[in-house]
Each structure stands twice: as structure tokens, then as C-alpha cells.
């Protein structure tokens, strides 16, 4: 059974440990602006929402890539960017309807969540279990799945 990130915004306190851990693990520095998971704050409502790639089945980023630089990691199911092949054209960044693959001007490549090879640093760092890494069946991904289905121009669903 593959696992996926489960996010429960109700438990998030906005401490940003996930952003710190992600940037440290992946970029070697505590720099939330380089984190692949982002916590959005809605101060009026007193809510915090951690948000990152759900490794969606449609994989718009992967479909749109003109040079085969994004592939599926067979072990984790994550859609992973190959730095060696990415040319930095950014087409994936506008094709992904979730906005979870982004351009890093310092490297000239795109970055996205790769599930840290099956041991996501954000989930480990989260002190309140707002982010957990659990069996895919249990993650309430339906909201995003529904969103994905609606964005579909008709071509993705059945192939």
C-alpha cells in the first residue's frame, strides 16, 4: 500500500516547522521561502492551511513536460523532477492546476514535493499531527480529486 500525505488544517497551529524541515531537508537551509510545503494563514478566520502536492493521478506537470523530466517513483508514487533533464521552461508551473510545482530562479529548475523518498520531513516535523504520512486510502484527498476531475479537459480521465 502506497502512503500519502494527509493534511488536517484543523490541527495546524501555524508553527511552520514543516516549512523549516522541508527546506532544510531538500535545500540544505532553514529557509521557508524554499519550502515545497506552504502554510497559508487566514488571520480573519484564525485558520492555517498547510498545502503541498498530492501526487495526483492526472499528473498535469508530468504530462505537460516537453522533455520527459518528470517521472513517477515506482516505490512511493511521487512525481519526481529530474534536475539533469529539466530545462526550466516552466510549462509545468502553469499546467498544474494546484500551483504545487514552482520555478526556482537560483537553480533554473522547477521544484515540487517528492515525498522525501518515502519519509517526508514535514510529517516528521509536525508537532500536532496536522500533517501525517499514512495509507493512501485513508487520506481525504477527495476534495482535490474532485477539483482535478473538474479541470480535466476531457482527455485525462480514462487513459
Amino acid at each position, binding site marked *: 500500500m502506497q502512503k500519502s500525505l494527509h493534511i488536517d488544517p484543523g490541527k495546524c497551529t501555524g508553527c511552520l516547522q514543516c516549512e523549516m524541515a522541508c527546506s532544510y531537508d531538500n535545500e540544505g537551509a532553514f529557509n521557508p521561502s524554499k519550502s515545497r510545503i506552504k502554510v497559508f494563514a487566514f488571520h480573519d478566520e484564525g485558520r492555517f492551511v498547510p498545502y503541498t502536492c498530492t501526487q495526483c493521478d492526472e499528473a498535469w506537470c508530468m504530462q505537460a513536460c516537453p522533455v520527459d523530466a518528470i517521472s513517477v517513483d515506482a516505490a512511493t508514487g511521487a512525481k519526481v523532477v529530474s534536475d539533469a533533464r529539466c530545462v526550466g521552461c516552466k510549462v509545468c508551473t502553469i499546467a498544474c492546476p494546484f500551483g504545487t510545482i514552482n520555478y526556482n530562479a537560483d537553480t533554473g529548475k522547477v521544484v515540487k514535493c517528492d515525498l522525501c523518498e518515502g519519509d517526508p520531513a514535514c510529517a516528521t516535523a509536525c508537532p500536532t499531527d496536522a500533517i501525517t504520512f499514512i495509507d493512501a486510502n485513508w487520506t481525504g484527498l477527495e476534495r482535490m480529486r474532485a477539483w482535478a476531475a473538474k479541470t480535466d479537459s476531457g*482527455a485525462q480521465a480514462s487513459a
Partner: protein
Amino acid sequence: MQYVVVGAGPAGVVAAETLRKVDPAGAVTLIGGEPEPPYSRMAIPYMLTGKVGEDGTHLRPAAGHYDARGITVINDRVARVDPATKTVVTESGASHAYDRLLLATGSHPVRPPVPGLDLPGVHHCWTLADARAIAEKATEGRHVVQMGAGFIGCIIMESLWERGVKLSVIETADRMVPRMMDTRGGAMIKQWCANKDIDVHTSASVTAVEPNPAGPGDKLVRLSDGTGIDADLVVVATGVHAYTEFLDGTGIQVDRGIVVDDHMRTTVPDIYAAGDCAQGRDFSTGGYDVHAIQPTAVEHGRTAAMNMAGIDVAYQGSLIMNVLDTVGLITCSFGRWDGVPGGDTARVVDEGAYRYMCLQFDGDVLVGALSLGRTDHMGVVRGLIQNRTRLGPWKQRLMEDPNRVMDAYVSLSQVAGT
């Protein structure tokens, strides 16, 4: 079932792979008209800057990719299609029978009627062969004149600039990237280029290219205002048109591109079309148009292939969208960035910081957007537009600050009841 796909760009390759997936027993032949492995035109600029080698442009780099899928790849040009006998005939004289045929021949660069464009050292930047010729001539310090500063022109411009040439760019429209940027954004891009020592002329046209043995550069490019610019190399990027000439006499209807219905069928039975050559359904207008962008080519290819294999898929239409990096200034455009009648517009601009964001609404639904100077989370603009998300209270918030588009998306998609 014998499937023949003509054209080995992204539309053709995705179609061939999809056919294989959904009809494991079918025979799939992919015919590409250039003597190269299937490659991606849009990776050419990155080959010119040296970011990748030629193999970095290949659509499927893995060795044996096509063989492993039982896709027969043929390098030959199709000279004509004969719907009566259901065959295509190539320039080498070979004939290939089809049960279902896909036309994915892309577009061709347009050569404007300017005297002198037949001189040596005048090139399009469309094929790998063009790119090799440009790479040879566009070396540090050489004089290069580029005709056209549209979307593709601007991408090529960046790679020429990175090669250290002395660069002039001539655009007939009143601004750069006129088809994906408004007047304000176009002016900001022009100023940005000027700051990088690129000599940009807008509302100007090239009247002739003349030999100029005295140099510097062996050519002189004459402009409508009388200016003459030295050139070793002239790059012509003045637009493209769907490549359909070889279909004359087949009965396949061609308008701006090959006319297709919402199943990517042409007007002739068992013949489909996809990608730059096809006039497919447009999400924003509900009409049919040629988009000539990579994401549309891929969606077309997949949709056409499924219908060819007998899986009924109606195409909802593709959203026109572009992201452009003009020597470091990143711009995006989506859908109806120029607005709709009776709709609302939200703009925030900071010219000094090269930041600009413009959203277009129809009621409380986002229908188009422009951005300049930001890249973070721009994909959600696509999501919001293509889902036709009712923005509710977020419409007013975005009217006040269009930069909050990601907040709007996260709130509407992740936080129930907001």
C-alpha cells in the same frame, strides 16, 4: 487495427503512446518528417544556451522507448494522403495503409515577403537543423538581428542574448508579445530588455536585408524608418501557420488549421488531427482555434488517440496559456487576459519593481489573467479558470488585491464553508 500517426512532435508521440496503452493489439506507426529522433521544439532555446545537449531536446530519452512499446518510428516525409485507398505516401515513395490516421504535422514558420531573406545567414528558429545553423553563427560579439518579438521570438531572444551576441529585435506591433501581453506589460518588458542592452524596435518593420561586404557583419538590415543595422545573422520569428499544404485535394477541410470536431475528427472519415496543425476547441470561447502551444498539443494528442481507438471522449477545449522568461523577467498569460464584455478587471502594478498582476472576471468567475514578475503558484490560475470556480466573497478581495489569487484558491478548495 492499423494506426498511422504523421508527425513526431509532442502531439504525435503522446497520441502513439496513448494508442498503444488503450489498444494493446493495434499496430502503431509514427512517421516523423525530420531526420531526428522525436524531439520537442520548445527545448531548442535551452540547447542554444548550452543548458542541455541535443539529446536534452528528445521527447523520450530512454533508449528503446518506442521499440519497447511496439511503436514503429519512421523518418520520412508524408507527401500526400489518399482517403480513397486509405494510404499515406511518403517522399521516398513508400506507402502506408491505415485504418485510422492522425495528422499531427505541427506548424511551419512564416517567411514574410521581405527582399533578401534568401541570403546566407538568414534562419528561422524552428527545427534542430535551424538551431545548429544558429549556434554556429551566433557567437560572442557577432551582430544578430531578430525579426519578431512574439512569444516564441522572446524565448529565442533570451537564448541569443545568453550567447553574448549584439542583439537587435524588430517587432511590427506596437509592443512586445502583443498576443499575450497588454500595452502596459509589453512596455515593461521592452524597458527590461533595454536595461539588458538589447536594442528593441517596436512599431517598426524590416524592409530589406542587403549584402554588406564592408561589414561589420556581412549584411545590412533596413528598417521602415530608414535605420540600417549590421548583421552577421538574421533570425526570422514572425509567426507560424498550420502545416497543411500536403492535404490539398483530399477533401479535408482547412481553415486557420485543420478543422476538427470535439472528438478531434477531421471532415474526412477515419482521419483525425491534433496539435499545432489542428483548429481545436477553445475552452474560453467555446469556438475552435489554433493554439500552437505545448500543453494543447499534448491534450489534443491524447484525446484524438482515445477516440481513434473507439473510446468516446468529448473534448472540453483547451485553455490558452503561456509562461515566458524574457532575459529573466517572467510573465504568464491565461485565457481571456484581455477581458470579456461586461466583465470586471483587477490590476495592480509596480513598474519600478517590474511586477504586474491583472485578473479578468466574468461575474464572480475568473476567466483570464496576466502576470509579470511572479511565478509562485501561478498554476492555480489555470485551476480557478478551468473549474469555473464561483469566487463568492473572494471576488471582492481579489478586486482589491489580485495578488491574493493563491489565498483565494486555498481557501475555496481546502477550507470548507468559507
